[in-house]
C-alpha cells in the first residue's frame, strides 16, 4: 500500500473519571490510505469514539490525557505540531467530521445558511492559510463569498437536498434527521478534505433512510477520492460502506482486514463471537459470556482473555502484536482461528 494518509501508532489515551483513571486507548495502531473507507467497529466502551476524537484533537481537555503515541497526517505528527496551525489547516479542512446525532448538530436559532457560510469563511478551499490566529475582524471578500456559495449550492445538489437555495434559508428544525445528515455530509465535503471522520452517522436514522445515506456517502467519497474513517457498532453497516474493517475491543484493536476477507475468514475469537451474535433467521441466539471489562482496572495482556475460549498464559501476560495472516489481514491474537465463521459454539 502506498504511504498511508493517516497513521496512528501506539496511541495511549486516559480518561480521569470518578472511579479512577480509565485506560481508554491502549496503544492503538491504525492506518488509512488515500481514498479508502475504513470501518472502525466495536461495541460501547471499545474506544472508537475516543480514537476518532483524538485524531481530530477534540478530546475534552480536562478529563482526557494523551499519554503517548503519534497521529501522523501526511507525515506530520498532529499531536506535536503547532496547535494553531493544526486548527487552521487540518481540523475542519484536511480532516472533517460528521457527528452521530443529527438533531443536535446545528444551532437551532440560526438558519442553515449562516452556519454553512460561516464554515466556508474559515475553511473554504479558496481561503488562504491564515497566519494562524483567528481574527474576529477577518474579512470575507465578496468574490470568494460568491464562489463559495456556488460551491455550496453544487454540493447541496450532490447530496440531493431539493431546492438548495431555498433550503439554505430554512431553520434546522425544518429538516428531518435524514436531511440533516445530508447537510452534515455536504459540510464535511465542502472544505475538500483528505479524510472524513464519520462517527456512527446513521445510527440514529431509520433503516430505509440509512440505506439512502450510506449509498450517497459512498458514492460521493469515491467520486472525490476522499478517505473515510467510519465508526459503527453495526456490522451490517460496515459491510455496506467500508473497504476495510478494523475491530476494537476495550481500547485495543484486535483485527484489521479487507471487508470481504473480514466476513469470510474472521480470525480473532472476539470478531468471531461478534459475528455470531448477530441475529439469524433460524432464531438461535448466541451471546458472548461475561461482560465488557472496566477500563479503570482492565485485564492485563489481551483484554479479551477473560471471555475467550482459547485464552492461555501468554494471553494474560502480554498483549499480542499484530500478525499478518493474508494480504492486508492483521490479527492481534496468540490463537487466531482458521475455520470459517459459525463453526464454533
Amino acid at each position, binding site marked *: 500500500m502506498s504511504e498511508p494518509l493517516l497513521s496512528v501508532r501506539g496511541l495511549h489515551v486516559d480518561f480521569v473519571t470518578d472511579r479512577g483513571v480509565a485506560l481508554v486507548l491502549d496503544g492503538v495502531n491504525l492506518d488509512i490510505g488515500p481514498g479508502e473507507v475504513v470501518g472502525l467497529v466495536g461495541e*460501547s466502551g471499545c474506544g472508537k469514539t475516543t480514537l476518532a476524537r483524538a485524531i481530530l484533537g477534540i478530546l475534552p481537555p480536562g478529563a482526557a490525557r494523551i499519554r503517548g503515541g503519534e497521529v501522523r497526517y501526511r507525515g506530520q505528527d498532529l499531536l506535536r505540531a503547532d496547535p494553531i496551525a493544526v486548527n487552521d489547516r487540518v481540523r475542519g479542512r484536511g480532516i472533517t467530521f460528521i457527528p452521530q446525532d443529527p438533531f443536535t448538530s446545528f444551532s437551532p436559532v440560526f438558519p442553515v445558511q449562516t452556519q454553512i457560510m460561516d464554515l466556508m469563511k474559515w475553511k473554504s478551499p479558496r481561503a488562504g492559510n491564515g497566519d494562524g490566529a483567528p481574527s474576529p475582524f477577518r474579512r470575507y471578500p465578496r468574490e470568494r463569498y460568491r464562489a463559495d456559495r456556488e460551491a455550496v449550492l453544487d454540493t447541496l445538489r450532490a447530496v440531493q437536498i431539493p431546492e438548495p437555495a431555498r433550503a439554505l434559508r430554512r431553520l434546522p428544525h425544518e429538516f428531518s434527521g435524514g436531511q440533516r445528515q445530508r447537510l452534515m455530509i455536504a459540510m464535511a465535503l465542502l472544505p475538500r478534505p483528505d479524510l472524513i471522520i464519520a462517527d456512527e452517522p446513521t445510527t440514529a436514522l431509520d*433503516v430505509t433512510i440509512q440505506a439512502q445515506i450510506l449509498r450517497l456517502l459512498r458514492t460521493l467519497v469515491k467520486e472525490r477520492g476522499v478517505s473515510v474513517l467510519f465508526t459503527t457498532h453495526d456490522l*451490517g453497516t460496515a459491510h455496506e*460502506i467500508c473497504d476495510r474493517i478494523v475491530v476494537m475491543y476495550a481500547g485495543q484493536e484486535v483485527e484489521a482486514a479487507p471487508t470481504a476477507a473480514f466476513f469470510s475468514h474472521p480470525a480473532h475469537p472476539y470478531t468471531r463471537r461478534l459475528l455470531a*451474535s448477530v441475529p439469524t*433467521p433460524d432464531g438461535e441466539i448466541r451471546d458472548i459470556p461475561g461482560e465488557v471489562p472496566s477500563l479503570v482496572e482492565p485485564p492485563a495482556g489481551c483484554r479479551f482473555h477473560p471471555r475467550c475460549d482459547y485464552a492461555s498464559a501468554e494471553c494474560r501476560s502480554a498483549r499480542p502484536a499484530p500478525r499478518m495472516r493474508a494480504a492486508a489481514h492483521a490479527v492481534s491474537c496468540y490463537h487466531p482461528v482458521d475455520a470459517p465463521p459459525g463453526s464454533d459454539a
Partner: protein
Amino acid sequence: MSAPSSAPLLEIVDLVRYFPLRNAFGRRTAWLRAVDGVSLSVQPGETLGLVGESGCGKSTLGKTAIGIYTPTAGDIWFAGREIGRLPPRERRRVARDLQYVYQDPGASLDPRWKIVHSLHEPLKIHTRLSRTERAREVGAILSAVGLPDAHLDLYPHELSGGQQRRVGLARILTLRPRLVILDEPTSGLDVSVQASVLKLFRSLQETFALTYVFISHDLSVIRATCARIAVMYLGKIVEHGDKTAIFEEPRHPYTQSLLAAVPRIGGRRVTLDFALQGEPPDPRAVPSGCRFRTRCPLAQDVCAAEEPALRELDGRRVACHFA
C-alpha cells in the same frame, strides 16, 4: 380472517388514536393520526412482531393497548373483555395481566426508591399479600431474572444499565402478567448485549408462560424472535401474517423496500440496489388514499382515490391495490 386455534388473548379492532395539534393559542389546528384503524390479534403463547420505522405509530399502538393513552375509537379485547372503555379503576386492575416494557426498563424505576421497594410496589397495589409473602415472590422473580438478593438494598443509579434493565423487568413480572408488550427493547444496544437480552426474554417466556408483542424497527431481531409479524406505515398496517412468508416474499411495496434496506453481511451490498427515494410524509398531513403512494413505484390514480383494505393473499394479509 384465518381461524385461530384458540381464542386470541388480545384482539384489537379498528383502533384509532389521534393527538390534537394545537397552535400557540391552544386552538386545535389539526390531528396527528398516530394510529388510524389498526386490527390485530395475538394468540396465547406467541410472539407477535410489530415492525415499522419512526413515526409509524407502533409505540402509540402499544401504549394505547396498555392504557397509557385512551383510544379515540375502536375496541381492545383482552381475555374476552373489552378494556378500552373501562372506567379508570377497573382499567388499573387489568394491569395485573397486561403489561408494558419500556425501551429502557431501568428508567421505569423511581430514582429515589430502593430496589426492594420498587419491586414490592406492584404487589402492594394489586394484592393483599403480607410482607413475608411478598418477599418470597420478589425473591423468586429476582432469581428468574438472574440478579442477586444483595441488589435489593441498592438504588437504581448504583446498578449498571444491564442490571437496571433486569430490575425493570422483574418489577413487571412480580404480577405474573399474561401478555407483555415490549417496546423497542433492544434499540441502541450493542449486538452482543442485544443477544443476551433476547436470550433473557426467551427464558422468561418459558418460565412464566408469557405472550409477547415485540415492537421494533430492527428487522433481523424481529425475524429471529417472532413467528407472526405486522408491518406498519404511518398509522396503518400494510402487511400482516406469517413471518417466513413475509420475509421470503414480501408483497407490499413498503415491506419490500424495508427488507431491501437491511444490510446483509456477506454478499452484494444492498445499498447498490436500494431504490426507495424520499422520506415518509409528515404524519400531520397524511396523503389521501394509500399513504405509501407518494414513494411507491407502483402508484396509480386509484391509489390516491381509494384507500386499500387488508385482503388475504398468499397466506398473509396485504393492503395494496397491486400486490
